[in-house]
């Protein structure tokens, strides 16, 4: 409410944040844009890379492939996730809390680990493939390429839809459903005519989220895609590939990628604005007991889906305890902890790196998110409006593009950060901050401003009010958000794979490296350690967050 144009501490904070965004986000992106429009041989302005990309069907098809797989994955996750959320929130399901934890766990490992595990299960030499072949003589369908990517992405991303739609259903007042039944609209009809429209804003938000993640994901197609080329992979190959790298061309593809995601983002924003309305449930939905037959089907559906999705992770944990050959390439009879032993001997650093790099990023993210959300919610002005917009930009930039832009921006003195842990921290901050800022903003908006006014009228200065009243009140929400961020940070791959050096290998990168070397045993062990980290974080989250609401 206070709009006096007095200069105080917060102006300094605004300007500092603006400068940080300028230096670490806008400047590298600008550098990348410049690179994309200059010929790397003649050094002159040219659009030939863009021309090349759009005229050569080899490159252009990567774009088409990405779209195809992302659209299919989005459709499939919605198809799977929306009914799951509906059943979970409207009916009595046995073991609700357990089910929810499992659903969340499904989404919490890096997609490429899922892809890798599916290969172990269903690949050419996979356990299930071999078993089915020897037992029934049936050849399993090919898992590589489009089908595999779709399988991995949808089993990985349906929890997102589940969480979004569950959140929406929690705000649906029971009386809306009763009124609908009262007027003769029940069952399936009510699902389509009342429930779906009520959840539409969340469904669209979830859809966008899934689409963006599928589009930007590059670990999965790299691992299981084989001949099926998507453009994040192409960017990676053009940038760090073994043969014929072309940085300018990679920059050009990146620019195209950003433009496309920006357009999709804007379309979604426009569409969701048309659907937007606010709901607040006075009486939350009362869960009903379904009929016997329906109950069995519902349990089968819920637990079946979770079982399928969690199977790869469980299998990896199982494999991590198997004996391997000396080189680590083959599994042998018997079980032991030898994989773990080897991992701790050779990769102890990676655990330390994970804590150091991801922890550092997490602290920066939390501090920045609190400050930015305060500026955006409580002190609206032009500069903070710009900060608000800037903070949303990373939504539309794929991780690999962030990484390439950072390398282009900071490979030379005075800011030669390439290869250091710093650049990975920066990349993680840029990637993750929008989500943490959004949730902090939501938390702050829920805190009535009168509480801060009360503090001011009791003689506390602005700064004191902020750290004595505002921050403590936000803290619970921010901490639970931070734990979720932590989980996504330790499973981050797409930017770190471009930015890492031998000194900054994290657990997640460790799995990737082990897999690419073919040392399956160690890969399984590292990924199990990673899963353990995730589960512990989740348990911590459940303890900290009172309402047990989980948002990604």
């Amino acid at each position: 409410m206070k709009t006096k144009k007095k200069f105080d501490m917060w102006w300094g904070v605004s300007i500092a944040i603006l400068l940080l965004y300028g230096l670490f986000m806008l400047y590298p992106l600008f550098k990348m844009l410049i690179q994309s429009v200059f010929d790397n041989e003649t050094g002159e302005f040219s659009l030939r890379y863009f021309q090349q990309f759009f005229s050569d069907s080899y490159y252009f098809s990567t774009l088409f492939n990405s779209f195809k797989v992302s659209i299919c994955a989005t459709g499939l996750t919605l198809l799977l996730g929306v009914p799951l959320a509906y059943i979970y929130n409207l009916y009595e399901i046995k073991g609700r809390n357990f089910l929810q934890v499992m659903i969340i766990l499904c989404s919490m490992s890096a997609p490429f680990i899922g892809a890798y595990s599916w290969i172990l299960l269903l690949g050419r030499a996979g356990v299930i493939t071999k078993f089915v072949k020897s037992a029934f003589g049936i050849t399993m369908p090919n898992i590589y390429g489009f089908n595999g990517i779709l399988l991995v992405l949808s089993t990985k991303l349906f929890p997102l839809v589940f969480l979004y739609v569950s959140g929406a259903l929690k705000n649906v007042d029971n009386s809306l459903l009763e009124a609908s039944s009262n007027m003769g609209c029940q069952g399936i009809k009510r699902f389509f005519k009342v429930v779906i429209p009520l959840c539409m804003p969340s469904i669209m938000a979830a859809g966008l989220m899934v689409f963006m993640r599928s589009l930007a994901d590059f670990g999965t197609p790299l691992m299981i895609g084989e001949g099926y080329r998507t453009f994040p992979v192409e960017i990676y190959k053009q940038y760090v590939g073994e043969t014929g790298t072309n940085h300018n061309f990679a920059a050009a593809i990146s620019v195209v990628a950003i433009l496309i995601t920006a357009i999709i983002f804007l379309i979604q924003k426009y569409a969701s604005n048309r659907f937007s309305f606010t709901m607040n449930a006075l009486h939350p939905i009362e869960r009903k007991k379904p009929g016997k037959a329906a109950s069995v089907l519902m349990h089968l559906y819920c637990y079946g889906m979770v079982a399928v999705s969690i199977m790869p992770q469980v299998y990896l944990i199982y494999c991590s305890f198997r004996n391997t050959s000396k080189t680590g390439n083959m599994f042998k009879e018997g079980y032991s902890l030898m994989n773990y032993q080897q991992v701790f001997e050779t990769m102890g650093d990676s655990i330390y790196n994970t804590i150091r790099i991801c922890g550092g990023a997490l602290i920066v993210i939390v501090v920045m998110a609190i400050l930015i959300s305060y500026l955006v919610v409580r002190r609206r002005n032009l500069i903070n409006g710009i900060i608000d917009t800037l903070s949303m930009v990373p939504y539309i930039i794929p991780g690999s593009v962030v990484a390439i832009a950072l390398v282009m921006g900071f490979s030379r003195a005075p800011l030669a950060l390439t290869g250091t842990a710093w650049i990975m921290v920066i990349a993680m901050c840029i990637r993750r901050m929008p989500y943490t800022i959004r949730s902090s903003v939501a938390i702050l908006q829920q805190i009535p401003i009168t509480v801060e006014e009360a503090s001011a009228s009791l003689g506390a200065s602005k700064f004191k009010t902020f750290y004595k009243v505002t921050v403590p009140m936000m803290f619970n929400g921010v901490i639970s958000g931070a734990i979720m961020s932590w989980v996504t940070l330790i499973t981050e791959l797409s930017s770190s794979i471009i930015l890492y050096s031998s000194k900054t290998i994290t657990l997640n990168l460790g799995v990737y490296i082990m897999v690419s070397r073919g040392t399956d045993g160690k890969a399984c062990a590292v990924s199990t350690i990673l899963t353990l980290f995730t589960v512990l974080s989740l348990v911590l989250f459940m303890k900290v967050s009172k309402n047990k609401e989980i948002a990604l």
Partner: protein
Amino acid sequence: MNVEIKISHALKKYGDNVIIPDLTVDIRKGEFFTLLGPSGCGKTTLLRMIAGFNTIEGGDFYFNDKRINDLDPAKRNIGMVFQNYAIFPHLTVKKNVAFGLQNRKLPKDQIEERTEKFLSMMKIQEYKDRLPERLSGGQQQRVALARALAIEPDVLLMDEPLSNLDAKLRVEMREVIKEIQNSLGITTVYVTHDQEEAMAVSDRIAVMNQGVIQQIDTPKALYQRPGNLFVATFIGRTNVLDEEIYEDTRGKGVRFGNGFLLPMENLMEEARAGQKVKVSVRPEEFVIAGQEAEGVGATVEYSTFLGLNTHYIVTLDTGERVEIIQESQIDDILEKGSKIRLQVKNEKINVFTEDGSRSLVR
């Protein structure tokens, strides 16, 4: 520490939207002053201007001789009670009350002593180590009040502090507030839209509408001698009738529709014979008389028995519907369709100009 609040020509705008055009008011030392008006009349806006949470676009605000327009809210020495209490949910009751004292860097023992004093004054000592979420609405209200008073403010501001409580608690709390204010003698500005609440606690009330103060007076004067038609209708219930002034040899009075002449001794000089006026007759200012008596003819439509009083809705012979309140009698209630005559207590009723802007009664 007692302070007089002087506001002259206050102006509040949001963009081009003027909320308070030009407002002047003096609030006396130690007074319990209430801003009363329908929602959206600018009463909370004015209160927040005094508190320093709203900017002031024009005019001067004084605490005694000190101009406070640009003073930081933290430095105005104000105790404020908010509609939603605004208690810090992460602090215990005791820490909430001590919060303002700690900001003044008082010595520890003094903080302790004053906190205890106000905790016991508000009768919440036993909850002092609880978190606010475990308190009932009334208890939270007490914490908010104790917190506001603990800093021994010059001015106590309250923004609809009782609106979140249930009816019974509201009555109880308004007694508490009134009592505490009386004993501390602190200048208090209170905002409410509930006129009964305002009447119960206030020394003086300012009735506001559309950013303009309609009248400032004691509760009794506001009720009995409202300055204009808005105040007459907003404070209490009333029947508004379109009538005419007459004048004969004995003096002036009001001629009712069916020719009934009501002589009045307190009409102003400017009231001229034949002038069209609005007459405000409160339900209890009618007297029901038999059919043979003098008065305005009417027919009973229906009645509501409420114990102490009986309400009648009747239709005058001129077609207007009015409400009458009578102390309940032991004999039968008048039946629907009964023909009656109404007399009017001429010393109590109010007469306004036809546009309702001024009273014609001395």
